[in-house]
């Protein structure tokens, strides 16, 4: 006899615990890419995921991970949906996610830029942002490269403790 699990809260809990493949200290819920977990009338668990960046190579792995975890937990009918709208923003990284990033030596993002309707302005002297060193807390830091190992991170260094660190960019 097959028992069909119908507890959507439990399914949501399972999906929320799946780690991000590129930032494994974060769950997909912490990162804000798990948009919804619902259950349809026939008992299918529908998990909705949104990509961080268009080119995020981990999307397929995230989908497969969520589906596998839900099946392992006994949910036999699982459907994964991709949600593109609204686009992911680093503002969706939860407070818990930000705390975990800092704990792992990665500076969490500041507030994402918002621009009013109309052409996106080009600012040639970008406002210098202050990023606190995740190790010693010093604000005496500088950007070494705006692009790093993954699209979502930049490389910075601390001038106080001399340590380099990664920084999740606001987008």
């Amino acid at each position: 006899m097959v028992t069909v699990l119908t507890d959507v809260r439990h399914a949501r809990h399972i999906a929320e615990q799946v780690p991000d493949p590129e930032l494994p200290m974060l769950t997909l819920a912490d990162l804000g890419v798990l948009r919804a977990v619902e259950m349809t009338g026939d008992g299918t668990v529908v998990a909705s995921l949104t990509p961080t960046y268009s080119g995020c190579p981990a999307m397929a792995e995230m989908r497969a991970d969520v589906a596998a975890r839900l099946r392992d937990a006994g949910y036999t009918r699982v459907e994964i949906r991709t949600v593109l709208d609204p686009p992911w923003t680093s503002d969706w990284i939860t407070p818990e996610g930000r705390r975990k990033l800092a704990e792992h030596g990665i500076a969490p993002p500041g507030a994402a830029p918002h621009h009013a309707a109309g052409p996106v302005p080009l600012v040639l002297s970008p406002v210098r942002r202050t990023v606190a060193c995740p190790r010693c807390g010093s604000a005496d830091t500088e950007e070494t490269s705006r692009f790093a190992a993954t699209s979502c991170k930049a490389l910075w260094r601390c001038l106080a403790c001399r340590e380099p660190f990664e920084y999740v960019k606001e987008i």
Partner: protein
Amino acid sequence: MSDDHVYMTLAEGHEDDSRWAYGTGFEDPLHGVDTTVPEGVDAGRLAADCVALADDALVSAQRLAEWTTRAPELEEEVALANIGLDLLGQARLLYARAGQVDGTGRDEDAYAYFRDAEDFRNVRLAELPCGDFAFSIVRLLVLSSWRLAHFEQLSAHPDPVLAAIAAKGVKELTYHRQYAAEWAVRLGDGTEESRRRTRTAMEQVAPYLGELFTAYDVRGEVVAVLRQVTEAAGLPMPVYRPLPGAGRAGERTEHLAPLLAELQSVARAHPGATW
């Protein structure tokens, strides 16, 4: 599921698709997206628009990837590769959308690997060789400004999938343009040699501007950005000298076929291969 079982995880999720890791065919980037074409939208035209925008992105991504191991600094190599990866992601979403709506059911690989140069509809500026760093930067400045301005328009497109792809792309193109603009100013306002090369690059892109402005009504915004950057860099504005023909109409330079030969060779030598 631990990290070292990635293969198993992927394979498990795709029992129905054993081509799990060939090219990009192991997954549909629009997996589970509502594929309906709204009433009043011409599916053929929508598919053609998606393919042209995807071709621009794929060809640009390939050129940017050519800088890997050759850029002046490791940081710039990583930056150009990251920008290329974003564009590749945009191309995949757009090809997938085209395949959903053009009635052929083609996947992204069919568009990327199994069409010939004369079937591509990218603008010719995208396919020109990398040239020196100054040329690649100036080209990136022009193409990212142009694409950004058009993606802003497209984010209000009646097709919700194309609109969502564009809205997502706007965020990425904004920092692509930022990167290129800052470098263009640095080079133009740099040494005598970097200024000379950047000025030459501006002259080299000029003939290809015409077809960009014929394709989309974004001339005002692109010209404003170029004016802002050239003024800050102390460079002359590129002189508008349109070439006949257009990449959007299938006109190609001699440079696309060799680019595609490299891009497509493995997929064509081993159709349907998995590894």
